[in-house]
């Protein structure tokens, strides 16, 4: 956020102070860090509560119900709308019964509804998302046909201009040709999926040829975990880069130091 006058600059300095307080934890735990952490917890809780009260209680219950009562004489459907909002509100209030041990059993009803709703939506979702397309994608295609359009796109990606790339692509037959490299890659993918799945099948002992096959699956899993770790390093460093950019550009900027 750009600085606007005195309050903007004060805000940036306060942010910078909180940032340094939080980083001080790296040296050791101290009261400055705890102050910053507890202030953050309180402010974030206040923000979440204000948003929830506004979005749910005000916008989803109070406003529609009040509007509905204005139309009940002219539109009978307004009564149904009011009823639904009040039922939802009642279910929400039942969630709050968790604070009172004697009636905390009432919170099971909205929880059960939410979990049932999520399960009913989830079952076709799991099949549509994780099972059928992934099975299809593993076996289709096993061979890879390289087309002129793909070759042209590759050449443009390597820095060639479109006309020259189109000329280079003419070396590919009009119907395309088998790309050995990508075909082998797809076969590797197929074998990888089978072997990694086999590793998790513990009803059969991992011995002999089957044991060797599942070992291949372990290697694929290790490559995947390594790739995830590499990407996680990128992600964590990016977050720290964001804070450093704030300190160097926004905070130093208030002192007249402008880095490019």
């Amino acid at each position, binding site marked *: 956020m750009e600085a606007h006058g005195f309050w903007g600059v004060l805000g940036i300095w306060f942010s910078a102070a909180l940032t340094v307080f*939080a980083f001080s934890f790296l040296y050791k735990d101290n009261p400055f860090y705890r102050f910053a952490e507890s202030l953050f917890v309180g402010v974030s809780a206040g*923000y979440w509560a204000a948003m*929830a009260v506004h979005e749910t209680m005000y916008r989803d219950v109070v406003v529609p119900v009040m509007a509905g009562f204005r139309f009940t004489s002219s539109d009978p459907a307004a009564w149904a709308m009011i009823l639904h909002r009040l039922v939802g509100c009642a279910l929400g209030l039942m969630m709050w019964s968790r604070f009172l041990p004697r009636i*905390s059993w009432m919170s099971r009803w909205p929880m059960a509804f939410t979990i049932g709703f999520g399960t009913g939506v989830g079952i076709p979702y799991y099949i549509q998302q994780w099972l059928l397309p992934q099975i299809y994608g593993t076996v289709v295609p096993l061979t890879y046909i390289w087309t002129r359009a793909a070759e042209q796109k590759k050449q443009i990606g390597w820095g060639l201009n479109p006309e020259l790339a189109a000329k280079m692509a003419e070396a590919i037959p009009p119907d395309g040709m088998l790309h050995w490299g990508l075909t082998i890659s797809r076969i590797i993918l197929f074998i990888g999926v089978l072997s990694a799945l086999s590793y998790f099948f513990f009803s059969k002992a991992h011995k002999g040829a089957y044991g060797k096959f599942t070992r291949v699956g372990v290697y694929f899993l290790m*490559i995947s975990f390594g790739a995830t770790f590499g990407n996680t390093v990128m992600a*964590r460093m990016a977050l720290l880069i964001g804070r450093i950019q704030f300190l160097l550009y926004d905070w130093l900027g208030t002192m007249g130091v402008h880095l490019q």
Partner: protein
Amino acid sequence: MRRQVPFIIATVAGVLMLVQFFVPAHGMVRMQTVFTLYTRIIGGFAMVLGVASLMQVSWVRVKRRADNWPFALTTILGFVVMFSVGVLGGFFIHDPTTGKLTWSAGIAPDKNPVFGWLFYNVYTTMDATIFSLLAFYMASAAYRAMRARDLTAGMLLGAAIIVMLGRAPLTAYFWDMWLVKPTDHQIASLGEITEWLLTYPNTAATRALMFGTGLAALAQGVRILVGLERPYMAGTGD
């Protein structure tokens, strides 16, 4: 009744939503609209529940003057100020386009000056900073814990190193300059090697895990619908 009614609610809601997927008739669509409304409203009340629990814990620590109680008081004060400013802002903030007094404009950090100041300078800052500390611990873990003690660990580290160097534009640039361009792209660029690693071996393993997760989630869903699993009964005294 206290145990049966929640089971009936969960099963009926679940089965109706499942049937609606296959029978998108008007009545079923209307039912879905109502159910999504209930879920949204319950979600909002649940958020307030979570916040209230946190404040209750903090208040107890302040009342009993437990260890570090001033920090619990800071939490409560932060909550009270932020919540009040957000809620009360609606009675003073006008929507700049219509000129009308609107609570919605009051809850928007970029329209409510005090709310916005706290949001941008406390909430956004600390949210980002707390997460950024992980970068340091990750570096420490990389030095102290990442050991290639056998072939599988070596493969994990090898893949991690390739991905890290491939995702770093500087190393990819030097690889291109020294190996790719002089050989006229006979050697793949580091970025292409990384993409191949992610697209084929990584996808193979991810897919296998996805099949397992999908089947387990499917089984869990069916168990919830038939009542063998009742996660909604937890934490309510039974």
